[in-house]
Each structure stands twice: as structure tokens, then as C-alpha cells.
């Protein structure tokens, strides 16, 4: 109890650990896997990412050349980024805003 | 790799499990695997990190004697096997009657393999898909 009381006193004097979220945002580290993005110019539409994706979130068609990701299904594991032969896929560190 | 596996017939199950219990083994879990015409049921036991497995081949339609009277710990996993594989387990201490994991209207015996996919033994001796979920 004594330790708890002293801890409470310390906390009352300290700055709060939480932040007022929508107004004050946390800075994300560069390594954060936020969402999947593509540099579409480099893409050769080989479909390797589509084949490997564990959740079938990626849809690639050769004719016409389209590449699409279903962000709801994507688990941001980064497997597609690894297998991409052209290194055109990348994980951005910011999270997508809620629609 | 799985070592230390003893293949036993259904009739010897209780005796073997009893012997293992006397030796101080702990029940780790049961694994059921669909082989097409039969279910392959593995009993995993552990004592001081040494695993011991009992393998049982249970033809389709036969019921599996429960070991919950020896190891109460098996009660959840036996119910699970009954739900997911449609194997009737006889004499469980607590029987959820096929409603342990699955609810009304759920697929029957979902973990059984569909006919024609996977094991070729199925193609030779086709068995009606799904068992009865008690």
C-alpha cells in the first residue's frame, strides 16, 4: 500500500503518459508497416505478389494492366514486397485514414 | 520427426493409457487426422520433455472410447474431435453433443477432407462426406 501511495504521488507530479489523440499524434517510426503501396510505373504485372499473398488481397490482371489491393484484406505482412522482382512494392509507415 | 510412436488397436487403448498414467505421463493432446476411410488418432503424452505417442486407426463409423475417465484433461479435445471430424466419442465425462465448437447450422464435420482432394485412397473407396455429428 505504501509503495502504491508513493507511486500515486509520483504520478500526480509527472506528465501524463497518454496524449490527446486526435490533436496530438504520435510520431511513427520509419519501420512501421502502415500500408502497402506500389510504384506503378515500375510494375510489370507479373502477378507474383498476387500468387503469394496469404490473404488473396492483391488482384493483378495483365490485360488490361491493373494492380489493385484490397486494404481490408491486406495484413501488411510484407511477403509481396519480398517476392516482387522489380522492387516496386513498398510498405509506407503511415496508416491509412479511416474511410 | 515423430518418434516413439506405438500403434495400437482400439481395444488396447484403455490399457495402454492406464499404463502410461501409472508411469507418470501427462496427456499433452490428441490429434485427429482424416485418412479417408479411417481416422488417424494420435495420443501425445509427455514425461520430462520426452514425448510418447499412441497411434490409433479408427475406421469410419466406429466410435472412439473416451479416455476422460483416466485423463480428465482430454475432455475438451475429445469434444473437439467429435465436433470437427464427426467421430463419435463414447463415454465422455462431459459431452457437449457436437455443440462444443460448432453451433446449430454449422457445417458437419468440417475438418474431414472433401472427396477427391488430397488423399487418393478416397477415390478408391468413396465414403459419404461428413460423418454424423452425434
Amino acid at each position, binding site marked *: 500500500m505504501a509503495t502504491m501511495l508513493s507511486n*500515486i504521488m509520483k504520478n500526480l507530479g*509527472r506528465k501524463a503518459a*497518454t*496524449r490527446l489523440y486526435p490533436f496530438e499524434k504520435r510520431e511513427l517510426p520509419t519501420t512501421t508497416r502502415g500500408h502497402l503501396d506500389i510504384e506503378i510505373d515500375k510494375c510489370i504485372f507479373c502477378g507474383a505478389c498476387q500468387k503469394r499473398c496469404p490473404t488473396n488481397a492483391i488482384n493483378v490482371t495483365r490485360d488490361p494492366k491493373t494492380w489493385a489491393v484490397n486494404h481490408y484484406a491486406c495484413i501488411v505482412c510484407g511477403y509481396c514486397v519480398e517476392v516482387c522482382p522489380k522492387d516496386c512494392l513498398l510498405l509506407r509507415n503511415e496508416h491509412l485514414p479511416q474511410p | 520427426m515423430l518418434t516413439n510412436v506405438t500403434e495400437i488397436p482400439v481395444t488396447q487403448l484403455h490399457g495402454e493409457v492406464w499404463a502410461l498414467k501409472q508411469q507418470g505421463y501427462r496427456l499433452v493432446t490428441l490429434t485427429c487426422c482424416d485418412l479417408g476411410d479411417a481416422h488417424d488418432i494420435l495420443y501425445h503424452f509427455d514425461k520430462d520433455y520426452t514425448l510418447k505417442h499412441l497411434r490409433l486407426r479408427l475406421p469410419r463409423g466406429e466410435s472412439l472410447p473416451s479416455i476422460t475417465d483416466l485423463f480428465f484433461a482430454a475432455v475438451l479435445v475429445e469434444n473437439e474431435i467429435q465436433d470437427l471430424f464427426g467421430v463419435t466419442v463414447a463415454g465422455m465425462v462431459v459431452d457437449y453433443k457436437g455443440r462444443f465448437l460448432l453451433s446449430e447450422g454449422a457445417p458437419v464435420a468440417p475438418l474431414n477432407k472433401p472427396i477427391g482432394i488430397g488423399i487418393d485412397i478416397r477415390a478408391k473407396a468413396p465414403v459419404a462426406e461428413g460423418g454424423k455429428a452425434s
Partner: protein
Amino acid sequence: MITSHPLMLLALLTLIAPFWGALLSGIDRKLTARAQGRIGPPVIQPLYDTLKLLRKTPIVLNRIQVVYAYLHLAFMVLAFLLLVLGQDGLMFLFVFAFSTLSLVLGGMCVRSPYSRIGSQREILLMVAYEPILILLMIGIYKANGSFLLGSPFVAAKPLLMALPLLFLAFLVVMAIKLQKSPFDIATSHHAHQELVKGLTLEYAGPYLALIEIAHFYEIAILFYFVMLFWASNLAIGFVLACASFFLMVLIDNAFARLTTMWVFRFMWTGALLLALTNILWLYFR
């Protein structure tokens, strides 16, 4: 409390009391948050919550439940009036207890087992703290020669001087009434407990708001009651009451919830002993 417009003042006080209670409970939440290292909600959050509850669609399980919610509030307001008017302390206690009893009956008249167990526990709590409140009234009588709750204002010495141990016992009762941590077994403000929300589980919307408002009155009553202990100088009384509330926050944050039997044992040994010692001292000094 004698002014040129006594009725006006009374009406004003009755109107202000729940807001004061809400503010106190908001400060409580803020302090609690700070004690835990959080920022916490705005101070008037309880007010927002209650207003929101009032605007919700009423859902009732049975009509009698609603009656008990109203009775709870009505008796609480009556208790507040009796206190402010300086009426008989025993009468005040009776009305105050009846208010809690209405809540218990409201919890009992539904079929939810959680609500019923909560009600049982609340009754047990009442059995645990009522003797102390009665002893407190006896203490006030011994100190001031009157059961009237107005008597501390005209007494020569502050009540705290005569009833120091009873004051401590009263603080424990206060912790129970404010649903603070070691004693929040019947219901609590955050629904994180074995009984979900216990006593008030089956109330929703405006009727829950009624109970909330009654609780704000309860807070105001308790605050006022602490002030009585130093009524000759209300400024000191106010500081005393604030300190007591701060102590409640500390206790809330430094304790886990204990079991019903522990609370009962504690009240009938520790707290009751404190109260009895004080009374005996008053008799034999």
C-alpha cells in the same frame, strides 16, 4: 441557514447540489486519471454523461423498476433537504437509508442474477455501515446536546474536536457510499467487476440518469456532512471536505476491491470499534 428568502435559497441549493456533485465526481475522475498517469476526461464529463443518458430511449424491464428509481431520487433529495434545513439527524438517516433501500428493491425486482447479487451485497453493506451512522448521530447528540443537524453550526466547539474517531469511521462510510475501491462490491462506476454493474445493471437510459443524479445528490450530502464536522468556520469545513475527497481518491487508487466478507469484518470490528471508543470517551470524559 436563516436568510431573508429561506425558500428561495433552499430551492437554489437543491438545484445547485447535483451540479456540485457532478463537478466533484468529475474532479474525482480527473484526479484518478492523473494518479494513474493519464490525462483523463474533462472535469464536467459526468455532466455530459448524464445529459446523454437523459436523452436516450428509455428501456425498462418492468414498471416497478422505474418507480424505485424515482423513489431513490426523491428520498435522496428529501435527505438533502433535511440535512440542509438542519433537521433531526435520525430522521435524516432514516430517509437516507430508505433511498438506498429503494435502489436495492429496484435491483431486486428484475430477474438478472447479477443485479440480485448486487442488491444482496448492498444490503450487507447497509448492515455494515448503518450502525456507524447511528453512533455518529449519538455522538452528535452527546457533543451538542441535540439530534438536530443544525446544532453543529451553533455549537461552541467544532464537532471534529469531540468526534475525531467517529470522523475516521465516517470516512470509511463515505468510501462505501462513494463506491470506492476496497468497498465497491455492490456496484461501481467502471463496470469492471465480477457483477458487471451489479445493482444498477438493469437500468438504462433516463432511469440510469435518475440514479446518477441521485448519486450526485449523495456526493453533495456527503460533502456537506463532512463540512458539519467544522461547521463553526465553513471555510475550514470546506477544506476538510476537500481533503476527505482527495483521501477517497487516494484510497480508491491504492486498493484492490476486497470481498464482501472482508468489508463486513472490517466494518464490524475496526470501524465499529473506532466509533464505540469515541462514544465511550464522550460519556466518561
